């Protein structure tokens, strides 16, 4: 995609900046950005051979993939802390570099920085809205509370406190004491603490061949080859998503 090439192109011709500037972290992915461009060109030439080399992915495309996954998945996914930190440092570096450039080039660099900032903001906003929908569940379950960053966890707890305070003040404290709970299970198994619906339908594309995969217990396994697109229930492929073998569309 054009934006990714534009992003890589900024750093490709100036490798000396990486070593000299202390603001840029020593991430192996970035020092190989110029290599990444060439690797990608090689890959497109060899695609009919179904080669599956591990393409060096730069932070931006990783965040883009995490962002698309986050927007399509019903529950909250692992926080890409390292990617975001790297990207924010790159943004700072880029802003520094902008000051010494003529106006037109500075404009283009600024557009680039704005794209990155938009992506980061949208990623965080999606996660926050998911947290707000099912805050209690994410805080109580350890599998989910591990996927949140420390800031998000604090936000979730604050949100729960605010909501409970509001509900209590509005009407709950005027009910008799045994009706004041906010997290019990009712007689028919309905829970007051809402959970995300893990059976919602998602489109997914296979990134690396998985072979025969059992979709439903009663049906035959289906071969999942690279670049195949499936529509299925989220719960079936969520493990594959965690391993990075599929991505959501």
């Amino acid at each position, binding site marked *: 995609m054009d934006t990714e090439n534009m992003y890589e192109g900024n750093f490709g011709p100036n490798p000396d900046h990486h070593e000299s500037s202390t603001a840029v972290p020593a991430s192996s992915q970035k020092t190989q950005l110029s290599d990444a461009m060439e690797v990608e060109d090689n890959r497109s030439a060899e695609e009919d051979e179904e080669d599956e080399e591990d393409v060096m992915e730069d932070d931006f495309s990783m965040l883009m993939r995490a962002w698309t996954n986050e927007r399509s998945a019903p529950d909250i996914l692992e926080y890409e802390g390292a990617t975001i930190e790297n990207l924010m440092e790159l943004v700072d570096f880029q802003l520094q570099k902008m000051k010494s450039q003529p106006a037109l080039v500075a404009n283009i660099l600024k557009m680039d920085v704005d794209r990155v900032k938009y992506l980061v903001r949208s990623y965080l906003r999606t996660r926050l809205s998911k947290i707000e929908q099912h805050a209690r569940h994410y805080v109580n379950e350890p599998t989910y509370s591990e996927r949140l960053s420390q800031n998000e966890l604090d936000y979730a707890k604050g949100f729960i406190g605010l909501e409970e305070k509001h509900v209590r003040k509005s009407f709950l404290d005027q009910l008799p004491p045994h009706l004041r709970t906010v997290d019990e299970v*009712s*007689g*028919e198994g*309905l*829970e*007051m603490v*809402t959970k995300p*619906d893990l059976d919602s339908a998602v489109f997914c594309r296979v990134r690396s061949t998985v072979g025969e995969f059992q979709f439903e217990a009663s049906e035959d396994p289906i071969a999942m080859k690279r670049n195949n697109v499936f529509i299925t229930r989220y719960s079936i492929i969520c493990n594959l998503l965690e391993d990075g073998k599929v991505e959501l569309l």
Partner: protein
Amino acid sequence: MAKRSYYDIDDILAGQERVPCVLRVDLDGLGSAGSGAASKVHRDARWALPYWMADRLNEEDYVDMEVSPVFSKRANRMYAASPESIQLRAICQHFYQFGLQLGDVVPEIPHVLRSMYMQRIQRVARTAQQGHNVEALDFVQGLDKTEARMLKLCQQAESAVADWQQSKAHTLKKASVVSS
């Protein structure tokens, strides 16, 4: 048809549907709550209670809950015979949601619901795509809440596709509030 949820409004409304019950105990002073006659209600009196109440009282053995007439054997046979011509709104406005709730207790109901839904939803989708005409009007007026929502979704999807084909999908328009 939303999954059963504590906070779902349609779920709560569907649980309000009445089911016939037989009282197991004598009740004093509640006559006006039932069919509205005497003030003392004896055992074996028949009452129509909302499902959410009847289910709990059934567990406590204060009443014997019976299958609602919406899902009686005769009704099930009718549904199987001609699913598309039945006016669900007249029978029960929250047919599917109510069926979901009863389905925990009565095992044949999920089957009935599924075959009804599969047949009727095809007609709903067809009606959405062809636009309303006279013969579809009766059908549309007889849909229950779930199907009506599906119809609306299909119609919105149709107009969205039409917009997209004319490249109007992502056009920014001046808001009507901001008049010049």
